[in-house]
């Protein structure tokens, strides 16, 4: 059953099997955990997390060394009949980010979600680890998937793992938040699927690489792209589809919030980019890019202002996520319509992705810090944070340096991202986005300092001594925040790695 | 012979359809649950039976005929039992009527 003469320039590459491994490892974990139960959590997870990290690193290295995308045709069947997996530089970088955040979350959650010894299987631990692995599997498919329907299944897998995470604690409010999230997600996934159907009807394939050569700017392509984008925006919680996010992300247990905010919403964003830049490159025009970025700008302003008005830390961080998602959408006007050369070598492309990576690390660290603070205080009301800095110096420091990324202040990945995006908006002559970013940075500074100011103030009531165990978890959060800081070592110019395996400049003849 | 069989098919299926129509009318017009149920089950059994009977001459293989008959039997079985269950439920909820 050898594949017949490949239609593509791509064919399965030597290291392509790594992509299968990256997806299959967490899936094996899910099946084993479900079958064997709570007693085996430690052993299974302890094996899978390093293995998954290793695979992600191997994919990264292979793309780096080879300078080209890894490709795998599942079952040896080439598209359009079969399903392809494809990892370019961007996918590899995403995969590593996902693996590090998942790994960090696993370390952080080990204590909270350990199966109590000698007791019957507990609900929350088993469910948490299965959901965490499912999120990992789904995100790995999303970053390497090359088939729109296969990506639909992955998107559903991601949703089905994310929703129960929201209501893992089982409180009334969290169940309500989860149900609202679910209803938004159902709406989103059906719109996405509908677009997929239209695309198959019009172009006879769902393979992203093949589609790039077939899609024309015509009504059916516009309707399909519009519906799919709307569906994915609902899942990404871009303003004005953000209603579900704050209660959902704030209601989950801290490690869950970290993964939801840092990674899960990025999955659907990644697909929007795949859709417009890879599958339908000829479709993006100035107006469409401006619409998407305007929603992004709305998210930045609206999310930041609402974050400033929150009285509870986890909700504040959740609103900050809404704002930070907004920046991602500047990639459309700032990279899609590059004035010179191809989009991938511009400042906007690298800037957009740096924003995603740095926000992933910073936000995961921040939610963990918030979790530790809430655990120590028994609440997360910002007004009563006096003395937190003295009791939890490392965590307060973590919150601070993660905040640097959100504000876009050096040294942080967020600074690199926002600097590149500013640069791009100046170069593209779209200064209005620069203005929004500056205001957004100031507002972020406002809500970060609001929290830090309270935490650094003194209090009359002394704190009880904490468990020594929490120290390890403080360091996990700190390590993730430091990852966001380390990203500032990335040179302030378009990254070459993120250009690996990108398609040639789209040339689509009008129909 | 074929003509006779065809006429038989048309007659039987028409009669079956009529019973279904009558049953539906009964379902809509009859006053309470039990009489409606009565109309419905009668129509189901007879109507479907006649239709299956009428279709039998058209079936090419005997296995197909077996399938048709088993469909009728299965509907008979489930229809009868579901009607019982509904009636039972109605009786328990409205013991007076």
């Amino acid at each position, binding site marked *: *059953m050898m594949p017949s003469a490949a239609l593509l320039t791509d064919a399965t590459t030597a290291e392509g099997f790594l992509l299968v491994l990256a997806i*299959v490892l967490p899936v094996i974990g899910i099946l084993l955990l479900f079958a064997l139960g709570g007693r085996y959590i430690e052993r299974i997870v302890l094996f899978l997390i390093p293995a998954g990290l290793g695979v992600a690193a191997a994919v990264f290295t292979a793309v780096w060394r080879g300078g080209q995308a890894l490709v795998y045709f599942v079952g040896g069947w080439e598209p359009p009949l079969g399903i392809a997996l494809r990892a370019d530089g961007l996918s590899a970088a995403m995969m590593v980010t996902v693996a590090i955040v998942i790994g960090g979350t696993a370390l952080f959650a080990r204590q909270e979600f350990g199966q109590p010894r000698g007791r019957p*299987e507990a609900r929350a631990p088993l*469910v948490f680890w299965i959901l965490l692995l499912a999120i990992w599997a789904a995100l790995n498919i999303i970053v390497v998937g090359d088939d729109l329907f296969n990506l639909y299944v992955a998107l559903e897998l991601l949703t089905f793992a994310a929703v*129960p995470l929201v*209501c*893992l604690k089982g409180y009334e409010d969290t169940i309500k938040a989860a149900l609202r999230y679910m209803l938004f997600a159902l709406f989103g996934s059906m719109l996405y699927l509908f677009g997929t159907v239209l695309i*198959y009807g019009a172009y006879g394939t769902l393979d992203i690489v093949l589609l790039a050569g077939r899609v024309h700017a015509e009504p059916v392509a516009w309707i399909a792209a519009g519906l799919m984008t709307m569906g994915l925006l609902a899942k990404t919680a871009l303003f004005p589809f953000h209603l579900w996010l704050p209660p959902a992300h704030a209601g989950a247990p801290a490690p869950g919030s970290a993964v939801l905010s840092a990674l899960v919403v990025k999955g659907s964003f990644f697909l929007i980019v795949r859709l417009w830049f890879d599958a339908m490159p000829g479709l993006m025009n100035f107006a469409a890019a401006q619409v998407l970025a305007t929603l992004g700008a709305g998210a930045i302003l609206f999310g930041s202002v609402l974050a400033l008005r929150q009285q509870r830390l986890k909700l504040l961080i959740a609103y900050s996520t809404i704002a930070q998602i907004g920046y991602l959408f500047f990639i459309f006007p700032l990279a899609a319509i590059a004035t010179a050369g191809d989009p991938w070598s511009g400042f906007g492309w690298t800037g957009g992705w740096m924003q995603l990576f740095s926000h992933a690390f910073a936000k995961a660290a921040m939610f963990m810090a918030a979790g530790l603070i809430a655990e120590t205080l028994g609440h997360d009301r910002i007004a009563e944070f006096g003395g937190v800095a003295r009791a939890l110096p490392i965590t307060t420091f973590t919150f601070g340096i993660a905040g640097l990324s959100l504000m876009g202040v050096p040294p942080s990945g967020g600074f690199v991202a926002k600097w590149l995006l500013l640069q791009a908006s100046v170069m593209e002559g779209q200064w209005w986005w620069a203005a929004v970013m500056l205001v957004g940075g100031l507002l972020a500074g406002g809500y970060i300092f609001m929290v830090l100011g309270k935490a650094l103030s003194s209090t009359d009531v002394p704190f009880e001594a904490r468990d020594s165990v929490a120290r390890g978890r403080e360091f996990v959060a700190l390590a993730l925040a430091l990852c966001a800081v380390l990203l500032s070592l990335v040179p302030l110019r378009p990254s070459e790695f993120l250009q690996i395996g990108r398609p040639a400049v789209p040339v689509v003849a009008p129909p | 012979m074929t003509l006779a069989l065809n006429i038989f098919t048309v007659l039987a299926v028409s009669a079956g359809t009529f019973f279904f129509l009558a049953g539906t009318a009964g379902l809509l017009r009859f006053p309470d649950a039990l009489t409606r149920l009565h109309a419905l089950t009668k129509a189901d059994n007879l109507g479907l039976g006649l239709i299956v009977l009428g279709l039998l001459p058209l079936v090419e293989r005997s296995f197909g005929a077996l399938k048709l008959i088993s469909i009728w039997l299965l509907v008979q079985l489930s229809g009868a039992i579901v009607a019982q*269950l509904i009636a039972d439920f109605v009786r328990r909820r409205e013991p007076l009527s």
Partner: protein
Amino acid sequence: MTLTFIFNVVLVALLLTVATWIIVARAAFSAAVAFVAYGLLLALVWVELSAIDVALTEAAIGSGVTGMLLLGAASRLRETEATAVPAGRPLTSAVAVLCALIAAGLAAIVLFPPSIVFTLAPQAMARLPESGLGNPVAGVLFVYRAFDTLLEKVVLVLALVSVWSLAPDRFWGGVPGLHVYQQPNSVLTLLAQLLAPLGIVMGIYMFWTGANNPGGAFQGGTVLAAMWVLVMIAGLQNVPSTDRRALRYLVVLGPSIFLTIGLAGFLLANGFLAYPPGYAKPLIIVAEAALTLSIGVTLGLLTAGPPERVAR
């Protein structure tokens, strides 16, 4: 205007009427009842579209199991309906206009199809003999796009975990809250006794014939699930507690075997989810057999809902 066309017009008119009723009906319970009828009408449409495999799936899963879930939910939520506040009239009208516009745009796409009709039917048929299967839909599901099918099985397992995760902590590992019919030795018991053996044979037949004819693991598994639920409701078998090892093994059996065969492809064939030449059909049958069983158990458990009482 042929007779078939008139039949189709009536079918579509009925379908749209029932669909409208489902959306606008006052009571959720009647909407759910209508939904079951809607699914059966839809299955007829699929038959008319020459997609028998889909018709079977729609009847079994779309109408049957989904309908059962919706009916159960609607009847439990009946008393809450009065409190629901409907959306304001201006908003409703605006949304109605918007939805009509979307539908009209999509209808235009249907009325003016692309000049080139793309189809993968020739390619799918040309390579089908390599697998030894006779049903091209099974070929797509288990050969060309086996990866989708594998992932979808993981989605089902995950859905079950999600549903179970909604149990209160004290009931974890306990017994699902399936409503068992209160009266033993009723006619329902008789139905379960008569129908279940037949249904099990039917489910196995549907999976077995699926390699060459319409049918397959999903449809067969759904019939098995329906029979199992019937037997449990009739009280012939106890609802099992969710911490039973055997139950968990059954749920993951199908996906695990499918995944193992897929991984074996790395060593024995052309890579992940490829089959060694000549062994494709037997391997697919083995995978499908295990999947049928797992789908049956998983769908049954999904219908039964989260654990609601402590295991005895």
